[in-house]
């Protein structure tokens, strides 16, 4: 009976929501039809043309110098430059959730695995962990040029930690990770305050943005994304380690 009521409510939600899809018309603004979006009406047209503070004309890859945001990847320019405050908030959400998991199931001695791990797996795991770390670092340092950024990069680093945790029986994540996590977060806030002091508003870019497409372009964007990558990597590794912890005996 409960399932029928739930199904009805879910269906009502579906009907209500679908009724307002493609409701855009000349006179009244609504949700445009899938694919027929007029970007000029939207805020993001200025993000694409990188002309939020002044009109920068046409941005050419590899040629435009000292553009407003400087990162070739427009999504990264929004996440780390135009709306960097959201990302700071979102890094805080991950930080507080990790702290919460540490409060709830942290501590306790390491959980023994039921199966004994074959030495071949242990050695090959070490090689793979090294490769994973390099790949993770690559992903978040090139966040402003290629897809991906701080978060996927950090998760790939956490994946290498997971591999080590699964393969090694007694491996515990070192306390250094807590220090790395905290200092990276604090560094992000310090960059924000530096922006406030140097250029007048919190989290404002104060480094030259170079030519679009180079590794060292886009001002503080790669710096912030590397900080996020290391922070997310440290945090999620700590979180995985908590999931491996044994429950404390009451």
């Amino acid at each position: 009976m409960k399932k029928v009521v739930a199904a009805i409510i879910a269906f009502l939600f579906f009907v209500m929501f679908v009724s307002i899809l493609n409701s855009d018309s000349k006179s009244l603004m609504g949700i445009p039809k899938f694919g027929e979006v007029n970007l000029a009406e939207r805020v993001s047209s200025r993000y694409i043309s990188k002309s939020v503070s002044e009109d920068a004309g046409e941005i050419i890859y590899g040629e435009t110098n000292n553009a407003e945001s400087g990162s070739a990847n427009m999504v990264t320019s929004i996440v780390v430059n135009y709306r960097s405050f959201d990302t700071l908030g979102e890094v805080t959400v991950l930080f507080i959730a990790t702290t919460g998991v540490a409060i709830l199931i942290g501590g306790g001695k390491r959980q023994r695995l039921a199966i004994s791990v074959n030495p071949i797996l242990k050695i090959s795991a070490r090689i793979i962990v090294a490769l994973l770390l390099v790949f993770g670092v690559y992903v978040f340092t090139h966040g402003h040029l290629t897809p991906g950024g701080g978060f996927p990069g950090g998760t790939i680093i956490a994946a290498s930690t997971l591999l080590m945790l699964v393969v090694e029986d007694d491996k515990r994540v070192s306390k250094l990770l807590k220090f790395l996590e905290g200092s990276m977060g604090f560094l992000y806030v310090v960059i924000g305050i530096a922006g406030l002091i140097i250029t007048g508003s919190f989290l404002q870019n104060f480094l030259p943005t170079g030519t679009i497409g180079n590794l060292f372009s886009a001002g503080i964007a790669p710096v912030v994304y590397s900080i996020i990558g290391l922070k997310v990597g440290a945090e999620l590794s700590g979180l995985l380690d908590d999931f491996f912890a044994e429950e404390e005996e009451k």
Partner: protein
Amino acid sequence: MIQYFSVMLIAVGIYGLLSQKNLVKLVVSLNIAELGVNLFIVSLGYVAEGKIPILSPIVNSSSMNFVDPLPQALVLTAIVIGVAVTALALSLVLKVKESYGTIELDEIRGDNS
């Protein structure tokens, strides 16, 4: 078309939240609902012949026709928030299992004094 499927996903997630009694299943339904929301947000930014919003040697000028990058930036944040909340939810499930011995809502004798 993907918009209708994403709204269906949200509806399936809501159905799961209302009908399931297993705590882990509730977290699964929550993830499905959030997946639907994220899919819907990105589908709002789709432009028919738009290109991937990354400047590269091939797509080298900002005057070309691009897909809307803002919903993608919003979804990046929403995905990570969803994972953070899921991790917290699962650790709460472990604590409930530890003290109540079960993860079925109707078996848990909540002290609703």
